[in-house]
C-alpha cells in the first residue's frame, strides 16, 4: 500500500462518520428504522478501514510519519512577516493509527449497544446523528497535524458532548449538565487558545512539526525559558478541561445525565482521553517544569476522584469518578515521563471503561424495565443501594463486568495489569530520579482505592440479595445487541491482545509502535531523557509490580470484608468518620465552591454591570438628554412668553382686524366688485395726491 493510499483511507475513515451525520441530521427520521443501521454500518466500515490503516502503518511504514497538507488560507505577503499561509493537514503516525482503531472500535460497539439501549427513544435518529458527528470530530483531533485543526476538533467534540449530555433535555438537570460541561471545557480551552496564540505568534504556523523544529532550533516564545514552560502549561489547560482534571473535573460526573452509551463512548473512552492524547502529542515541547505541573495535576486528580468514588452510590457516578481518577493516572504517567505507559493505559482503559459503562448501562436498562414493570417511578434505577443479587439474572453482564473490574484493579492476566503496573513503575522511577516521591505514593494509594471501590460496586450490584424480591423477578438479561459489545470488550481486556508476556507489556506491539518522542526543548529545560528514564525503570520494575499487586489485593480484600462478608460495618465506619464521609459524599464541595465563587460571581457581576449600564452609562446619556431638555425648558419659557408673546400679539391684532373686516365679507360677489372698484378709485386718488 502506497503512502497516498494509506492517507486516503485514513481520510475515508475520517469522512465516513461525517457523511453519516449529514444524512442522518436531515433525513434520519424518514429512513427505515430511523437510520440506525446507516450510522452503525458507516462507523463499522470506518472501523474496518481504520484496522487496515493500522496494519498498513505498522507493517509498511513503522517509523514514518505520513502527512497530507493543503493550504487553507493564503495571506500572501504579510507586512513584517513575509509570506504567510495557514496550512492544514492530517498526519499519520503510529499513535494516530492506534487511536483511529480505538475510536472507531469503541464507537462501533457503542452504536451497536445503543440500538438496544436507546430503542424507542423520541430522538432516536438525532442521537445516532450526533454519535456520527462525535466520531468525526474525535477523528479530527486524532488525525490533525496542527494546532488549528486540533482546536477545531476539540471544540466540536465539546459541542457533541453538549448535545448528547443534553439528549434528554426535558430534564432540567440534563440541560444544566450539558451547559456545565461545555462552559467548563471552554475555560480549559481558553488556556489552550492562549497557548496556541503564543505559539502562533512565535512561529507563525499551526503545524506541530514546524513548531517542534522551531523550538529545536532554539527559538523560544518571547525568547524566554519561562514562557516556553508557560505555553506548555497553557496548552495543557485544554487537556485539563477535556480530560476532567483537577480543578476542572466537576463537569464529568454531571455529564452522566446523558444516555449511558454516550457516557461510555465520550465520557469514558474517547473524548476525555483526548486530553491525554493532546499531552502525548505535545510531549516534545514540554519542559521539565511543565511536565512536573502535569504530573502533579494528574496525581491530585487521581487521588481526589478515587476518594470521592468510594462514597458515591450512583453506579454511573462511581464510574465517572473512576474515569477521572484513571485519567489522572494517565496524565500523571505522561508528566512523569512514562509516555508509552500513559498512552497504553489510555488504550486499555478505553476498552475496559467503555465495557464498565456499557455493563452499567445494561444493568440500568434492566433495572429500569423492572421498575417500569412494577410501575415504580420513585426508586432510582441507578442507585446501587437498590440493587444486589443481579448475578443470577444477568450472567453475561455480571461476568463481563467482573472482567472489566479485574482489569481496572490491575489484576494479572488482564490488560489493566500491564498498563497500570507500567505506570506505577514509571512514577516510581520518576520519584527516584527527581525526588518527588509524592507522585508514586499517590499512584499506589489510588491503585488500592480503585480496587476497593470497584469491588464495592460489583458486590453491591451483583452479589448478595436483591433489595426487593418481587422486583428481581422482572430483571432480565439484555439482548444480544447489548451483550455482544460487552463480550467483545471483555475479550479485549485480556492481556493477550497487547503483549504475549502477561507480566509486562514491553515486548508487546504497542510498546514497540509507540516510543517516547525526543524532547525538542533546550537541554537545560528538558526532563530526564528516555534513556536515563528507562534505566531507572528497569531497576524499579519488579518492586513496582509486587507493590501494586499487594495494594490491589488489599483493596479487594477490604471491599469483600466490608460489603460481602460484612466483617466491617460500612455504616459504622461512615458514622465514625462522619465529617470525612460527608466531605467525600459531597465531592469535596467543589460544585458548591464553584457555584458560590465563580458562577454566582459572574452572574453577580453581570447583574451589577447591567445595573451600571442602565443607570450609569445610559444614565449619563439620558442625563445629558435631561440637561438639554432643562435648558430647552427655560429657553422654551422665554420663547413662550417673550418671543412667542410678540408673535401672539401680532396674531391677536390680526384677529382683531379680522373681526372687524369680516363684516365686509358678505359672501356676495357683487359687494366685492363694488369694493374692488372703490379700492381702485381710492388708489387712484392717493397716487394722484402723491
Amino acid at each position, binding site marked *: 500500500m502506497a503512502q497516498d493510499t494509506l492517507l486516503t483511507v485514513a481520510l475515508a475513515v475520517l469522512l465516513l462518520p461525517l457523511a453519516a451525520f449529514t444524512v442522518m441530521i436531515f433525513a434520519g427520521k424518514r429512513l427505515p428504522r430511523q437510520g440506525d443501521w446507516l450510522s452503525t454500518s458507516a462507523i463499522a466500515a470506518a472501523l474496518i478501514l481504520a484496522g487496515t490503516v493500522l496494519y498498513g502503518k505498522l507493517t509498511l511504514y513503522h517509523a514514518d510519519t505520513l502527512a497530507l497538507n493543503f493550504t487553507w488560507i493564503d495571506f*500572501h505577503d504579510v507586512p513584517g512577516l513575509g509570506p504567510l499561509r495557514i496550512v492544514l493537514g492530517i498526519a499519520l503516525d503510529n499513535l494516530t493509527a492506534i487511536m483511529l482503531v480505538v475510536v472507531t472500535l469503541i464507537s462501533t460497539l457503542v452504536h451497536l449497544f445503543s440500538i438496544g439501549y436507546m430503542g424507542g427513544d423520541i430522538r432516536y435518529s438525532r442521537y445516532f446523528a450526533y454519535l456520527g458527528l462525535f466520531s468525526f470530530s474525535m477523528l479530527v483531533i486524532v488525525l490533525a497535524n496542527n494546532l488549528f485543526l486540533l482546536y477545531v476538533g476539540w471544540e466540536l467534540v465539546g459541542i457533541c458532548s453538549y448535545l448528547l449530555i443534553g439528549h434528554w433535555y426535558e430534564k432540567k438537570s440534563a440541560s444544566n449538565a450539558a451547559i456545565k460541561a461545555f462552559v467548563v471545557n471552554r475555560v480549559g480551552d481558553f488556556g489552550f*487558545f492562549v497557548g496556541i496564540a503564543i505559539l502562533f505568534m512565535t512561529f507563525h504556523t499551526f503545524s506541530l512539526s514546524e513548531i517542534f523544529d522551531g523550538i529545536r532550533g532554539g527559538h523560544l516564545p518571547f525568547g524566554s525559558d519561562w514562557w516556553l514552560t508557560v505555553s506548555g502549561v497553557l496548552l495543557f489547560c485544554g487537556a485539563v478541561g477535556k480530560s476532567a482534571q483537577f480543578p476542572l473535573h466537576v463537569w464529568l460526573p454531571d455529564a452522566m445525565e446523558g444516555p449511558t452509551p454516550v457516557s461510555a463512548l465520550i465520557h469514558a473512552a474517547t473524548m476525555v482521553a483526548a486530553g491525554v492524547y493532546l499531552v502525548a502529542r505535545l510531549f516534545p515541547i514540554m519542559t521539565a517544569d511543565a511536565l512536573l505541573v502535569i504530573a502533579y495535576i494528574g496525581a491530585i486528580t487521581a487521588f481526589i476522584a478515587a476518594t470521592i468514588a468510594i462514597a458515591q452510590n450512583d453506579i454511573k457516578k462511581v464510574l465517572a469518578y473512576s474515569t477521572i481518577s484513571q485519567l489522572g493516572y494517565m496524565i500523571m504517567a505522561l508528566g512523569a515521563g512514562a509516555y508509552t505507559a500513559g498512552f497504553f493505559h489510555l488504550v486499555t482503559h478505553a476498552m475496559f471503561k467503555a465495557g464498565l459503562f456499557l455493563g452499567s448501562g445494561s444493568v440500568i436498562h434492566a433495572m429500569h424495565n423492572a421498575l417500569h414493570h412494577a410501575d415504580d417511578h420513585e426508586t432510582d434505577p441507578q442507585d446501587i443501594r437498590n440493587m444486589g443479587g443481579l448475578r443470577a439474572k444477568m450472567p453475561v453482564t455480571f461476568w463481563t463486568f467482573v472482567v472489566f473490574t479485574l482489569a481496572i484493579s490491575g489484576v494479572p492476566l488482564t490488560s489493566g495489569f500491564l498498563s497500570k503496573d507500567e505506570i506505577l513503575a514509571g512514577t516510581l522511577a520518576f520519584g527516584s530520579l527527581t525526588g518527588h516521591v509524592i507522585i508514586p505514593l499517590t499512584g499506589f494509594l489510588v491503585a488500592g482505592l480503585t480496587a476497593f471501590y470497584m469491588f464495592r460496586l460489583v458486590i453491591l450490584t451483583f452479589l448478595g440479595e436483591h433489595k426487593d424480591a418481587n422486583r428481581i423477578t422482572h430483571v432480565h438479561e439484555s439482548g444480544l445487541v447489548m451483550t455482544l459489545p460487552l463480550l467483545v470488550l471483555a475479550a479485549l481486556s485480556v492481556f493477550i491482545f497487547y503483549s504475549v508476556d502477561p507480566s509486562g507489556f514491553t515486548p508487546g506491539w504497542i510498546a514497540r509502535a509507540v516510543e517516547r518522542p525526543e524532547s525538542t526543548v533546550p537541554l537545560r529545560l528538558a526532563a530526564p531523557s528516555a534513556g536515563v528514564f528507562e534505566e531507572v525503570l528497569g531497576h524499579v520494575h519488579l518492586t513496582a509490580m509486587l507493590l501494586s499487586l499487594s495494594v490491589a489485593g488489599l483493596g479487594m480484600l477490604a471491599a469483600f470484608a466490608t460489603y460481602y462478608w460484612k466483617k466491617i460495618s460500612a455504616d459504622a465506619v461512615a458514622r465514625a468518620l462522619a465529617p470525612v464521609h460527608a466531605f467525600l459524599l459531597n465531592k469535596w464541595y467543589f460544585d458548591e465552591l464553584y457555584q458560590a465563587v465563580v458562577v454566582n460571581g459572574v452572574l453577580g457581576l453581570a447583574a451589577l454591570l447591567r445595573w451600571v449600564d442602565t443607570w450609569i452609562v445610559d444614565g449619563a446619556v439620558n442625563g445629558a438628554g435631561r440637561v438639554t431638555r432643562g435648558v430647552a425648558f427655560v429657553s422654551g419659557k422665554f420663547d413662550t412668553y417673550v418671543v412667542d408673546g410678540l408673535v401672539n400679539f401680532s396674531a391677536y391684532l390680526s384677529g382683531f382686524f379680522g373681526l372687524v373686516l369680516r363684516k365686509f365679507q358678505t359672501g356676495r360677489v357683487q359687494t366685492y366688485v363694488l369694493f374692488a372698484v372703490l379700492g381702485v378709485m381710492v388708489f387712484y386718488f392717493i397716487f394722484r395726491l402723491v
Partner: protein
Amino acid sequence: MEIAGIGILSWITFLPVVGMVVVLMLPKEKKDWLRWTALVVAALQVVLGAFLFMRFDRSLAGINTESGMQFLEKFSWIDVRSVSWFGRLHIEYFLGIDGISVVMVLLTALISFIAVISSWNIEKSLKGYFALFLLLDTGMMGVFVSLDFFLFYVFWEVMLLPMYFLIGVWGGPRREYAAIKFFLYTLLGSVLMLLAMIALYFSVNVYIDPAGGLHSLAEAARGMGQGWEKIYTFNMLAMMDPGNFVPGSLLAGVDTSMRYLAYGALFIAFAIKVPIFPFHTWLPDAHVEAPTPISVILAGVLLKMGTYGLLRISFPIFPDAMRHFAWELALLGVISMVYGALVAMAQTDFKKLIAYSSVSHMGIVVLGMSSMNTQGLTGAVFQMFNHGTITAMLFLIVGVIYDRAHTRGLNEFGGLMNQMPRYAGAMTVAFFAALGLPGLSGFISEMFSLLGAFQTFQTLTIIGAVTIVLTAGYMLWVLQRVFLGPLPEKWKDLTDMNGRETFMLATLGIIVIFFGIYPAPILNLMNSSLNTLAALLQHGAPAAMTSGM
C-alpha cells in the same frame, strides 16, 4: 464597467432609489406589488453584488491609491468657480471599491435582500415602509462605495433619516424614545465627523487640471502643471497622502495634537455607530424597539459602517494617531467584548440580549483592527461580515418567535425543540456560530482577530479571550431557556417556521457554514487590501501616491 452607460457601482447604489420611485407611484392598496418591487430591487442588488464578486481583481490593493480601486466612477459633482474666500469649490462624485468595501457591499446586498423577505408580514402603511427602506438601502450602499468624504457624509446622513422613521413609526412600544435616542446619538457623531471633515478639507490641497483631473502636490512640484489650479478637496485618497497637506495648515505634520484631536472626533463619530463602549446605549433600545427587518439591517449593516469608517477613513488618513492610540483602541475593544458579554448574560429580554451580544462581537472587530497586522485586520473585516450574517440570523430568530408568541421574555419559553424542530435547527446553528464553534464562520474571524491582536497586545487579548467562555455561557443558557426543559402549556400550539422564514434562515445558515469551512473566497477578496493597510499602519504612509489620481 458600465451597464447602459452608468457605472455598476452607481447602479447598485441607486437601484433602490429607482425602486423607491416605483413604490411611491404604486397605489398603496397593492401590497403585494409593493413587496415584490422591493424584493426585485434587492434581488437585483444581489445579482450585481455577485457580478462584483466575480469581476473583482483580487490582486489590487486599493486603500490609498486610486489605481488600486476598482469599478471607479468619477465625475465633477459640484464645481463652483469662486466661493467667497476659499476659492474654487470642487466636489467629486467619486465611487470605487477595494477589498474592504467589496465585502461590505456584498454584505449589504445580502442583508437587504433578507430584510426585504423578512418584511413580508409588515402590514402597517407598507408603501411608506418600503420607500424608506429602499432609501435606507441606498444610503448604506453609498457609504460603502464612496471615496469622496463629502459624498460619504451625504450618504451617511441619508441613511440616518429613514432609519429614524423606520424605528419611530414601525417600532415597538417605546419606539419614539428609541428613535430619537438613535437619531440624536448618531447626529452627535455626525457633527463631530463634519468638524473633522472640514478641518481636513482646509488642510489638504491638490491641483486640478482644466479637464477636471486631480493631481497631488508632488506631481505639481515636478512642474507638470500647465493651467492647473490649486484647490481644497474632499477626496479621501488625497487626504491619505501626507504630501498633500498644506504646510502650516491645521492638520499638517505628524503626531500633532490637532491631528490627534481630529482623529478623536472621527473616532467618536464612528465609535457611536459601532458601537464601542461607552457609546453603546442607543443600541439596545433601538434594537429592541425596531421591527425585525430593521433590527436585521441595523445589526447586520449599520454597525459595520462604524468599523468600516475607521478602516476606510480614520486609519489611512491618520496612521500616526492610530498608532499612538492603538492600545486605547484595543482596550475599548476588550472592554466592549467583556462588558457586552457580561451585560448580555444578565438580560431576560431576548432581543436585548442579542443587542448586547452585538456589542461584544463588535468589540472583537475593534480589537482585531487595533492589532495593525494582517491577521488581526483580516479577522476584523471577516468578523464584520460574519457578525452581519450571524446577528441577522439571531434577530430573525427572535422575530420568528415574537411573531408567534408576542413576547420576548426568555424565561417564559422552554421545550420548543420538539415543538419547532426547524426553528431549533436554525437557532442552534446561529447560536453556535455566535459562540464561535469551529466549522461555522464566526469561529474563524474571532480566532484571527484574537490571534492578530495577541501579537500586538498580549495582556489585553488574554483578558478579551475570556469572552469565549462568557459567550458560551450566556448563549447556551439562552438555548436552554428557550428550547430545553418541558414545554409550557401555553406554547402547545406554536407552529414551526414557514417556508419564507426557513428560506431566510437557511440562506444565511448555508453562508455561515460554508465560510466556516472554507473562508478563502472572502478572505482572498480583502487580503491584498489588508496587507497594504497593515503596511501603512506599521510603517506610516507611503512617500508618494500613484500618479494620475
